[in-house]
Each structure stands twice: as structure tokens, then as C-alpha cells.
């Protein structure tokens, strides 16, 4: 990851829609007898509003072939052609009766206008908050019907139940359950940014699924952890049988639904381990020297350590570590009376993710003003990070005594971590 950041998309999709004879054809993928995946694979996306997606993503949409043919969600706007082509491989798009919008964010709703023109469905459904959000995105003039939490919709030969999931991760978010196939269309919940030709979890390696699912949780859902436990309870309380979870990003959980739900419960619990994350940037290697000495101290004190120099690590990498790290240490030089810009970037990002229960400290080298350490401590306090040691400042290049202090800081934090971690 370069300091300039990834370009948004190195492999944009073709512009042509399904009506153009120049368009290539895309096939739907069968999920069950009456459900098909008709989404799009985005092999080139590398930046998802600030979250580095090194493995691309998918925008999952599904077609239900009940008496009322129903489309669940659409895709990001440039992929409308792929979506319409996959629908057309199964059914005449003009025969689609209903469109369900589980979430108004534009990676799922982006193609809505084009889809509504091509399909001309009888009705479009969204949650009450979704109706407002879609209006404020697309100004469709009242063509969306709101559904309430727990409301059912008959598709003739099948039925849908809507389950609101407000603030997981937007106010409009909801999930849709298809009882006849025991299939939960969970939208962003349980999803991950992973482009693959494989559509099902059991076709992919476990370590890859867990890595990307954790990355997704850390970067998108972490602030809403208290709501996750309540959502899992709510779904359990519905007494519905869930065989598969069809997410809006990444593979469908055909076999591993229980496993991902269990991982979500663990991640949402905010339980912390004995890893200390040391995030820093440096102008002339002095703050870096401090960081390495702190790292040695942490290791000597028995903690696990991850040093994350910010010319190498991305903000979304730091977020992943904060899923279960116990300590966050932040180091910055002072540039023109402020913390270094890359540090400000990461602190803004992780502050928004609201990780709970961390201990931490600030450090940095400086020439004269030295305001960075105090500024970092202010932000850590806002984040409710327990400052387990005083901030450490060194003028210009740290000598042996200064590096000794850094090492001692590491040892001190490691000691506190041991006290916190359940055996």
C-alpha cells in the first residue's frame, strides 16, 4: 500500500447494458431450486470508502423464482449490465414483479434506477428508514413501499419476512428471510469483501473466510458491537430455521452459517487479548527508534506486539488489530505544531470505530513545539482509552537513556495487559 493510497478501481467494468449486442453475457448461479445469485464480481476495487480491499469484492443480488418473481438488492451502478445479464439468463427481466432493497447504500442500490427502468416491477420494498434514504439518494418520488420489522410479504408460492437491523450498519438496514428455502438474505451482516469465482463458503479456504470476515467486522461493524448481540438474540427469538445465509458481499454461507454467527458473537463481545499495537509515523527515524524500543519492552514484559509503521500499514489494517488487541500505543513526531498527518488520519478513523476497553499511551520525538503527544492523548481519552502510562517525548534523536525510558514504557504496559487478560 503506497502512501498515496490505492486507486479506487483498476479494472472498471464494461459500460454496455444487457440491451447492447456488444455486451458479453453473464450467467446466474443456482443457490437453491428457486433462488439464483445474479450479482456482480468487482475484481478491481481496492478502496471501499477508506477501507483497503486488497482482494476486491462482490455485490450480491438474488432472484427468487416464486409466483411473484423477486429481486433482492441490486449492485453498484457500473455493474448494472452484469446484473441485468445474469437476471436475463434465468428469466425475462420484464417479468420481475418485486424488488427488495435491504440497504440504501450505493454499492447495493446504485443500479436501482437502471434496474427499475429495465424491470418495471409492480412494487419496490424497503424498511421505513430505507424509504426515506432511497428518496434522499435517488429522488424516486414515492415509488418505494415501506415495510415494518417482522412484516411478511406473500410471493404466492413462497413468503418473505423482513427483519430490521437498524444501524447494522445504517439506519435503513434490514434483512429478508425466505422460509421455504430457510434462507436469510442478511445484506451486509456476515459479509466480506472478497472477489471470487466461487460463490459458496465451502468452496473457499477457512482461513481466508475468517480473515476477510474479521477485516469486514473491524472496519464496518465494530462501532455497532452492542447491537450485534441484540440482533443475534432477535433472530434466535424469531424461532426461524436458517440453513443458509446469503450476504451482500462475498460468498454465501452454505455450510458455515453457525460458525460466522459464533464469530460475530465473539467479536461483538469486545473481549481483549494480550496484544499491544504500536502505531506510528516518523520524519527522521527518531520516533521509529522509540517505537522499536517500546516494542522490545512490550516483548520483554510478556505481551504480544505489532508495530505498524504508517508508511507500510493502512488505517484499515490498524482497525483489524483493534478487534482484539488489549493496548493501543500511538507515536508521532510534531510537524508545524500538530501530530503528523498520517497519524491524524488513522486516529480519526479508529476513533470512529469506537473500540472499547483499550489501554494505551502516546509517544514521539520533537524539535521544539512537541504538541503531538498531548494531542494524541486527548484523542485517546475521547476514545475512552485508559492511559496506562504518561506520554513520552524525546527531543530530536533519542539517546540510550531515552531509549531505556521507551523500553520501560513497554514493560509497564505489558504488565498492565497481563493484569487485564482473563487466564
Amino acid at each position, binding site marked *: 500500500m503506497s502512501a498515496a493510497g490505492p486507486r479506487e478501481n483498476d479494472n472498471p467494468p464494461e459500460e454496455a447494458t444487457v440491451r447492447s449486442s456488444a455486451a458479453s453475457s453473464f450467467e446466474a448461479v443456482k443457490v437453491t431450486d428457486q433462488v439464483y445469485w445474479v450479482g456482480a464480481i468487482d475484481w478491481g476495487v481496492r478502496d471501499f470508502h477508506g477501507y483497503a480491499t486488497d482482494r476486491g469484492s462482490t455485490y450480491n443480488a438474488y432472484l427468487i423464482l416464486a409466483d411473484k418473481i423477486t429481486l433482492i438488492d441490486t449492485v453498484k451502478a457500473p455493474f448494472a449490465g452484469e446484473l441485468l445479464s445474469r437476471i436475463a439468463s434465468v428469466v425475462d427481466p420484464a417479468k420481475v414483479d418485486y424488488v427488495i432493497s435491504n440497504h440504501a447504500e450505493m454499492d447495493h442500490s446504485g443500479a436501482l434506477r437502471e434496474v427499475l427502468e429495465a424491470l418495471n416491477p409492480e412494487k419496490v420494498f424497503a424498511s421505513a428508514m430505507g424509504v426515506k434514504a432511497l428518496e434522499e439518494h435517488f429522488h424516486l418520488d414515492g415509488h418505494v413501499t415501506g415495510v415494518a420489522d417482522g412484516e411478511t410479504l406473500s410471493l404466492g408460492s413462497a413468503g418473505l419476512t423482513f427483519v430490521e437491523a437498524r444501524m447494522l450498519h445504517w439506519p435503513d438496514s434490514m434483512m429478508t428471510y425466505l422460509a421455504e428455502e430457510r434462507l436469510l438474505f442478511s445484506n451486509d451482516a456476515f459479509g466480506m469483501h472478497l472477489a471470487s469465482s466461487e460463490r459458496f463458503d465451502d468452496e473457499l479456504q477457512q482461513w481466508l473466510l475468517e480473515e476477510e470476515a474479521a477485516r469486514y467486522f473491524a472496519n464496518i461493524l465494530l462501532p455497532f458491537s452492542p*447491537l450485534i448481540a441484540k440482533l443475534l438474540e432477535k433472530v434466535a427469538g424469531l424461532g426461524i430455521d436458517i440453513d443458509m445465509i446469503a450476504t451482500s458481499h462475498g460468498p454465501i454461507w452454505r455450510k458455515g452459517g453457525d460458525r460466522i454467527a459464533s464469530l460475530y458473537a465473539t467479536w461483538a463481545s469486545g473481549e481483549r487479548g494480550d496484544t499491544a499495537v504500536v502505531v506510528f509515523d516518523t520524519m527522521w527515524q527518531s520516533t521509529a527508534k522509540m517505537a522499536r524500543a517500546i516494542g522490545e519492552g512490550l516483548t520483554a514484559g510478556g505481551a504480544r506486539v505489532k508495530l505498524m509503521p504508517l508508511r507500510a500499514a493502512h488505517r484499515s489494517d490498524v482497525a483489524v488489530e483493534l478487534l482484539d488487541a488489549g493496548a493501543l500505543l500511538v507515536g508521532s513526531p510534531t510537524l508545524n505544531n500538530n501530530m503528523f498527518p498520517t497519524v491524524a488520519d488513522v486516529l480519526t478513523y479508529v476513533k470512529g470505530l469506537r473500540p472499547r476497553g483499550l489501554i494505551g499511551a502516546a509517544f514521539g520525538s520533537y524539535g521544539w513545539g512537541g504538541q503531538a503527544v498531548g494531542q494524541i492523548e486527548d484523542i485517546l481519552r475521547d476514545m475512552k482509552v485508559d492511559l496506562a502510562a504518561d506520554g513520552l517525548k524525546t527531543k530530536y534523536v533519542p539517546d540510550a537513556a531515552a531509549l531505556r525510558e521507551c523500553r520501560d514504557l513497554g514493560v509497564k504496559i505489558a504488565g498492565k495487559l497481563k493484569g487485564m487478560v482473563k487466564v
Partner: protein
Amino acid sequence: MTKYQCLACTYVYDPAKGDPENGVPPGTPFEEVPDDWVCPECGVPKNMFEALE
């Protein structure tokens, strides 16, 4: 009177101010806010609020 904060979006309900746009007059303690009231910012229900010390 105790202020309450939304766990989902950090909006703070201040009883002194109430939420008059949504039918909760100023001076209403959180306990007396109707059960079907939702966070005016993000829409989550009352059970997602916690007391601010």
C-alpha cells in the same frame, strides 16, 4: 436529570431539551419518553440507550 446516549450513533438525549420535533417536550426524563420513541439521528429504539454518568 440524567442524560442518555445512543449506543449506535452517540446522539445524546438531554431531558432538559427533550425531542420536541418528535413529540417529547423539554423536561421529560428518559424513563418517561414513550416506548416507541426512536433515536432521532439513526432510528434505533430506546433499549439501545445507556445512561451517561
